[in-house]
């Protein structure tokens, strides 16, 4: 339980921003706008992370999601020039709406129904150092695996999008 008025107000503001932007992602009519709202959603989520005293994760979120993933998405949108840029829905819109509502209902029900083991630990003081230690001591193997995964993803992305033949840049002089 956080009982600090400022933080609670900040949280609800950020939550409203995040969810509002997420709704905009679903609602706006153009794909690029959806990407930009998505970036805002990421930033709002990063704010919520800070409220939850996870500053490192928040910064990583901004760096990777808002900085890199959104950029990648815009890139992808731009690289598919002849594709449909409208943010339209398929026939699954209504089922998806129903399912999303049901999921929300179930999760909220379970959340409220469960008796959580709440601790009164308070906020974390400094997470970066402890996280670094956690990555390099107990989680070193997942950490390395994650790095390998990133490498593989990078190479895979390059291979996937590589053009089969590189067109000659320009006629060379003698």
């Amino acid at each position, binding site marked *: 339980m956080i009982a600090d008025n400022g933080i609670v107000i900040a949280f609800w503001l950020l939550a409203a921003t995040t969810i509002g932007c997420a709704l905009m992602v679903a609602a706006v009519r153009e794909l690029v706008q959806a990407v930009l709202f998505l970036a805002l959603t990421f930033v709002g989520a990063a704010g919520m992370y800070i409220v939850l005293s996870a500053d490192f994760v928040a910064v990583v979120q901004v760096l990777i999601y808002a900085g890199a993933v959104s950029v990648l998405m815009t890139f992808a949108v731009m690289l598919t*020039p*002849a594709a449909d840029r409208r943010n339209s829905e398929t026939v699954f819109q209504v089922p998806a709406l129903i399912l999303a509502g049901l999921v929300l209902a179930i999760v909220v029900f379970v959340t409220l129904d469960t008796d959580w083991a709440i601790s009164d630990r308070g906020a974390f003081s400094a997470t970066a150092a402890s996280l670094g230690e956690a990555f390099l001591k107990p989680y070193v193997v997942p950490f390395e695996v994650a790095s390998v995964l990133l490498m593989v993803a990078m190479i895979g992305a390059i291979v996937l999008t590589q053009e*089969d033949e590189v067109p000659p840049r*320009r*006629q060379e002089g003698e």
Partner: protein
Amino acid sequence: MPIKVEPVEVNIGPQHPSTHGVFRMVAKIDGERIVDVKMVVGYLHRSMEKLAEERTFTQNIPFTDRMDYLAAMSGNLGYCLSVEKLANIEVPERAQYLRVIFGELQRVASHCMATGAFINDCGAWQTPVMWCFRDRERVLDLFEMTCGARLTTNYMRIGGVAFDIPDEFLPALEKLVNDELPKAFEEYEELIVGNEIIMMRARDVGVVTPELAINASLSGPMLRSAGIAWDIRKADPYCVYDRMKFDIPVGYNGDAYDRMTIRIEEMKQSLRIIRQAVGDLPGGAHKTDVPLAIRPPAGEAYSRVESPKGELGFYVVSDGGPAPYRWHVRAPSLINLSVLREMTVGQTIADAIVTLGSIDINVGEVDR
């Protein structure tokens, strides 16, 4: 399998910072790469050739200022030469020497402008162009000193030059030629020859092959950059150029970089010519007596000069009246521009801008 894209058409110009006037280049672009280029000229067309038929031969001299307004002296000179050829007028020695001096000064001024603008097109943020302007201003100061005008000099006259040089001209000229400009040219060499970024941007960009250059009848630095030694001053000497010693700088590769280095060397050669001309400058009249409303005998004449842009030719037909019957200009800017498509297709937009800058067109001359 490359991505299938619809080429995008981009208008570069007529309102664009780098088209040196109101020249329009419709580029079809695939990503950053140019697929096709369409050139549209005529936004600055003032119908000079037609207008000239309604004016006397002498009245037409200011038109030549306003064609290539960066090289007004050369335009004046070319036109006057053709009328003199048509009317068989002998020009005094001193006037011929003065014509050479001012023609070469004009070349320096024009090339300064070209160099600065070129580096600006490469993306430098105004500094080199300011430096080049500084040196051009020094030359223009001399023009102002002589004829009162800086750009549209209207200095040459049929049968000579309009005014003799003032007394303070020669000292100022010698200071400029022997001290200030050589220093400035060293700076340009630093800027162009020694700059890695300029090399990266200009080497292998806008290449003209010798065959293309000849087939398109290019001239001036464009032609010489392709490796062909050709200069009207040597091939068809006018005034007293046959008495001057100078070299023709010739490039190797036909790219933008070659053109710019050739321009710098040409400026140095101009200084050399000016020094010789000043040394040999004879006394006497600066102008023969020619009636203001000259009526050359019926006939036609073509004369050409090596303007900074290239071969500038004037074709004048007289029917014996006070005005030319037909007046045609072979404008080097227009003809040099005609190979732009061959030079830019396959390159990026940035390269196209650099190429355009290296051609050194003047839209006033292109459209006339």
